[in-house]
Structure formats: C-alpha cells, structure tokens
C-alpha cells in the first residue's frame, strides 16, 4: 500500500524531519485559502496522485497569488493527470497540496529500501537528487551511497556520517542531515515501510535541510496484521484498481492485465506460469488470479464473478493442482458458480492432484459445457482455440 506525498510528509513530520509549510485542498476555494494561510508569496500547487513524474505531466505549478492557486487547482482537480508513470489513461486528481516555495541551493536524494539479498534495510543517498533513482542507478551506480543496517540495532552514527561526508555536506547542514538519516532509518523500521524516499532532499539557500517531496510504501503484511492502524487509515482506495481491491477483500490475489484470456489458478507460482503458457500458446492473459491453497466454494464463485466482470475476457482457463485444496471441492465450486453466474464464454479446466478422479466426475456429470484438458500445455492450446484466437 502506498501513501500520497502529503500523507508521507505528515509521517515525516512526526519523526522531526523538516518539511515546508503546506496544506491539502480538495477544491479550488480551499487551494486559495491554503495559499493565504501559508503566507508565503511564492507557493507550489502539487497534484496528489500515486505516480511520479507529476511535474512533467503538468501537475505541479508555481503560484504567486491566491487566485493563481485557485485557478490551477480548478484546472487539474477532478481530471485525469497523465504522467510518464500513469499510463495513457492517467489518474484522477482528487487533492492538491499547496506548499510554501523554497530557494534551492542543492538537490539531493535520501531513501530507504529492503536489500533482499542481505535481508536488511539499506539507507541510500545521492548527490543526484530530483531525478528517478533508478535512472541514476542505471547510468552511474557509483553515485548512490549505501548503508545497510540491522533492524534491531538501527542505523549507527558512523553510517550517517559516511553518507553526510559522501554528499559533501558541512557544518550545520551536515548535522541536520545526520539526524535526518537516523530519523528516516527509524521510521522505515517502526512504520513497516517497503519504500521510503525523500527526493529531492533540498538544501535551501537560507540553510538547513528540507524534504521537498516524499514517497512511502508500506508492507501489505504489516497492514494485514494490523501492526500499522494509523497508516492503514490513510489508504486511498481511489488509487487502487477496483477489481484488485474487491479481490483483496475476498482474500484473493488479483492483478489486472490487458489480454483476453481470464485465468484462475491456485498458488502464485503456478498462476504466473499459467499466464506465461497462455502467452506462449498465442494468447494474452486478462489477469493474474491466485485463489490460494485453501479456497472454498464461495471464494471460487467470487473469483469467477471477478473474471467475468471483465468485458475483454473471451475464454477462461482454470488450472488447479490440488494439494490442500481438493479437486472435488473445487469442481463442485466451479459447477455451483457457473450455475449461479451465467457464463457466456467457454471454460477450459485442467484439474490435477488430490481427489482428481472425483473432481473430473463432478464436472462431467454436471452437464455443463466445460472443456477439460489433461495438462497445462493442452489447456493453453484449448483455451486459445475456444476463444477463437488460434493461429
């Protein structure tokens, strides 16, 4: 789960990390009020969406009056904003952040991510702020300074110093940076972050150090385990795919894709592989859907409805390797669901594993038009044919 910039900054502030004075607005009038309340002659109005590249997409503007703030907010609120990261359809802007302007002397980068190989969080800093860190990593990996730290012990003082010296900071700015580095590392651990980025981290001409933009992702498991109730309350469902959100509420893992073969599989690895084999057979998957190891009849029916709610789906492939989830239970779930949902597209079923004979019998005796397949390869071939896409 991701947070908006303004939400990230609220959390950063709780950790004593300096941000500029700002206010969130949901209407043009509120944006004008926010400008007045901040009391800075130069302010910035920024669209709040879960995607980067907002400046390039025209979602950020420098304003010098309440009217200008209001007009820009009126121009972008309620409309889709297209940035290099949103895709062509863009994201609807529902809120803007109005923030005091800042005279920038230097733009730096400070971020924290998980290093999977080490099994440790790693604090990263770079002199090249204000650009995507992935770009810097691709172009000049040496430009990114890294300090992995133990979750229990936290970041050590020498590590914060190493980053500060590496960035070429001095005096009060160095001290301010070091304390910020500690705060970011502590926040990453305490708030179960999957990503925490301050980019750019700015050294203003007036001195000090300020988080000009902030991005924060939270470990979904920590949310599920109710370890972060305060952050969970910040969830913005508008920023999530509605089908993915609905699937999650049923305990199903669903990811929307842009193909036309719907698929339903148990287990994430087999589900990914099923998408792959659909592609190899000449089709394109409409989704990733993992019903999990212990799916019941109800979940199977709900999964079905989700698949069929997608108008591009021309055929459905069900690939189940029964382990804990027994094939007969699953087959009964499919039969019940098909009767209930009124399926208009062909369905190919490949069943294998625990109680497979009983499962196949249920499907056969149901009288439903279900195409069965003996293995994954055959299932993929049959579903493409059934969808009328055979080459």
């Amino acid at each position: 789960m991701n947070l908006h910039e303004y939400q990230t900054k609220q959390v950063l502030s709780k950790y004593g990390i300096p941000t500029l004075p700002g206010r969130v607005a949901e209407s043009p009038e509120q944006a004008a009020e926010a400008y007045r309340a901040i009391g800075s002659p130069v302010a910035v109005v920024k669209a709040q969406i879960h995607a980067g590249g907002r400046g390039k997409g025209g979602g950020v503007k420098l304003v010098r009056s309440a009217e200008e703030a209001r007009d820009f907010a009126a121009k972008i609120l309620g409309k889709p904003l297209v940035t290099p990261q949103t895709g062509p359809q863009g994201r609807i802007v529902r809120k803007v952040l109005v923030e005091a302007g800042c005279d920038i002397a230097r733009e730096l980068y400070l971020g924290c991510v998980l290093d999977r190989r080490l099994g440790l969080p790693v604090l990263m800093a770079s002199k090249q702020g204000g650009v995507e860190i992935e770009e810097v990593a691709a172009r000049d990996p040496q430009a990114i300074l890294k300090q992995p730290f133990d979750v229990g012990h936290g970041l050590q003082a020498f590590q914060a110093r190493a980053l500060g010296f590496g960035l070429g900071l001095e005096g009060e700015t160095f001290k301010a940076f070091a304390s910020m580095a500690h705060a970011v590392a502590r926040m990453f651990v305490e708030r179960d972050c999957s990503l925490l980025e301050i980019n750019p981290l700015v050294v203003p001409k007036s001195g000090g150090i300020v988080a000009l933009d902030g991005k924060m992702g939270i470990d979904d498991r920590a949310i599920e385990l109710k370890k972060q109730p305060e952050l969970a309350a910040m969830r913005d469902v508008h920023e999530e795919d509605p089908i993915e959100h609905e699937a999650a509420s049923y305990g199903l893992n669903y990811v929307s894709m842009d193909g036309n073969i719907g698929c339903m599989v148990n287990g994430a690895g087999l589900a990914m592989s099923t998408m792959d084999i659909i592609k190899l057979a000449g089709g394109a998957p409409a989704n990733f859907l993992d019903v999990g190891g212990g799916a019941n009849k109800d979940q199977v029916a709900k999964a079905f409805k989700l698949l069929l709610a997608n108008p591009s789906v021309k055929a459905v492939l069900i690939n189940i390797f029964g382990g804990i989830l027994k094939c007969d239970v699953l087959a009964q779930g499919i039969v019940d669901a098909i009767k209930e949902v009124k399926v208009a597209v062909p369905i190919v079923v490949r069943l294998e594993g625990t109680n497979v004979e009983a499962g196949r019998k249920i499907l056969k005796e149901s009288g439903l038009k279900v195409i069965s397949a003996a293995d994954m390869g055959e299932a993929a071939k049959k579903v493409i044919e059934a969808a009328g896409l055979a080459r």
Partner: protein
Amino acid sequence: MSVLVDKNTRVIVQGITGSAGGFHAKAMMEYGTQVVAGVTPGKGGQLWEGKVPVFNSCEEAVRNEGANASVCFVPGIAAADSVMEAAAAGIPLVVCITEGISIMDECRLRAFLQRTSTRMIGPNCPGIITPGETKLGIMPGYIHKKGDIGVVSRSGTLTYEIVWQLSNLGLGQSTCIGIGGDPVQGTDFIDCLKLFNADAGTRAIVMAGEIGGTMEEEAAAYIKEHVRKPVVAFVGGQTAPPGKRMGHAGAIIQGGKGTAAEKYKALREAGVACVISPAEIGATMKKVLEGKAA
C-alpha cells in the same frame, strides 16, 4: 540418499493444536514422518490425537523427545518468534510454512538466525520432502516418487506441477525443497544447489525461480563455477507487468530489475538448460538425462 531430511528426522510441529497444524501433522504422519511432539504455548501436557505429546516450549520438546527438526504453522503475527524459539532450543532445521510474516519481522528473524546454527526453510513455503521417507510440509505426498532428481523452487503448487511431470516420466526425486515466495528467506537457491551438488544420491537438479530479486542470477553464477550436475531451470512470471506484486510478496519487478528475461539470460550463460514452457519441465529433464540437447 537425500538432503537435509530422511526417515530418521524427528519432527516437532509448532502450532499442532491449530487447524492447519493439526491437519498437516496428520498428513505428515500418514506419509511416514516421525512427528515426535507438538508445541503450543499454554497447551503443554496434552496428548494430541491421543498419541503426540504437546509441550509449552520447543526446549521441552527437544529435551523430552530428542527432536531435530520443526515445522512451523504459527500465524504471521507470532511466527517469527516461534522460529526463533526453535532455533534457541538448538533445533538445526526449521521449516516455516507460515505466509504473511511482516518484512521487518523477517529481517529480525534472519539476523537472529545468523547467530545460531539453525537453517530455516521458508517462510511462506510448501516445505521439504524426501520421497518415500519423510515430508516436512504441506505438499501432497502421493505425487512424489523416490529417485535421484533434486528439486528446488520458490513456489508451492508449481513445485507440485514439476514433481508430477517428473514422476509421470519415471523420474523420481531425491529431495524436493520449496524455499518460499517471500523477499527475505532462510534458505536460497545457492544453499540448495550446494547440498544437491554434494549429495551422491542426486543426479540432476530442477530449479524453478520467478520474477523479483536477484537470487536466480546469483544461482547462475554459482552453477557456472561449481555445479557439474545437469541443471534444468524455469522462471515464472515472463508475462508479469512491472511494479505489480504477483501473489508472492517477493514476486515483483522493481525499477526494471528482477525480470524473467534477465534471469534466463544469466542461467543460459551458466550453461543451464532453460525451459520457457512450464509444461515442458519434466520432458526437458528427460532429454537432458538422455544426453539430447534441451
């Protein structure tokens, strides 16, 4: 021959009095696994199903029953603590089935285990099985066949699919290890490759990776350098979109890194027989063993 577990492995089940723990403890015992004790704090003194003693702690279970492996079914919020308890009791192998441990807890757990000699398999994994001898996990036992192919995979049901393909072609397995789909794991591909490479009972290895992280690339480098047995590899998620988590917490392409294409490239360069179609994994192994090019 096999790696890590065999018929003499004495297993405790952490969370045996819960529904998942109880269900799989039964299935393991039916397969032949020596389940010597259960551990559920607060329920010590019971006799589970009238035959398996339940203890309040791993330490008691080890002291009384001589357990040398554990399978953990404890829910996400407490699982990391349970694995640490097993390690502190000196249990050399802990298989953590639990899905949904927070990443910070997994980091703490890994740091804790580094100070012990305990190996963890998982979390979020199907477990480990030595066909015909013992299974520590949730996989359906009957699909396996005793033999000399080592299998290591980041997935659950995909591992069953692979095993099924192998067994149907008459290719039995020495040991099958599901290392799990989480970003921070106790055992990685290299650990398993080392074990299979050194095991006289393993003739060839199947490795099933997926998108996310760089474990397959590291494995490729290791294979190139050290492994002289044939390796067949598959990487799931060739069609996965970037930035999306594909079910497994660790299966995500981030910042353009962790794609199936990169992993296949590294594996191919290491001389591994790469399979693109998940339906052809068993058949590819058969060809490789018959000396035909994959």
